């Protein structure tokens, strides 16, 4: 997540960002000792009434097998 938010191409003003919604869906839960790989993509990025609504979807896997999918909606206000 820090990699995305700090990416200059993403143009995210962190001061003006609020975490608006969050959801998780677990295929199974991780066990101590496992290494989780998380891959995130921008699922949606749109302007609505002057607010930027950014949806980040992250897929977590262990050894290539699905663990969890999460979605984060951030609302970024203009300065």
């Amino acid at each position, binding site marked *: 997540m820090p990699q995305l938010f700090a990416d200059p191409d993403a143009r995210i003003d962190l*001061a003006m960002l*609020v*975490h608006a919604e969050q*959801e998780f869906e677990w295929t199974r839960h991780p066990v101590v000792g496992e290494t989780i790989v998380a891959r995130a993509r921008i699922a949606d990025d749109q302007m609505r009434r002057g607010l930027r609504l950014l949806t980040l979807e992250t897929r977590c896997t262990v050894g290539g097998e699905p663990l969890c999918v999460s979605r984060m909606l951030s609302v970024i206000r203009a300065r």
Partner: protein
Amino acid sequence: MPVGDEIPTREVEITEAGIRAYAEASGDRNLIHLDEIYARTAGLPGIIAHGMLQMGVLAEAVSDWAGGPGRIRKLRCRFAATAVPGDTIRFGGQVAGETESGLELELWGVNQKGERVLTKAAALVDR
């Protein structure tokens, strides 16, 4: 049938120290959670608690009722209002339905003023 069953509530008192500890634990060191002047300049009332700090306590409430975090299949919420140091947030919910996928819970988070801090909150739990 468990439909209508209420889950025991959990409370969290929001403090600056708790927010700082959560920033370290989560790695989310956005200054809106740590720096009062930065937060006010950004148009916030002051430093605010992470939404995920609240969702974590919500997850604890569900986990305690469900018999462990491993029994939670889905969890979602909207962070409807800010939570700041001095606030106390109470979380709870009830069983809204039962399907072959599991038990559907409707959840809520309310502060000491009765304002809903979490909305659209729900979980799916293994039966």
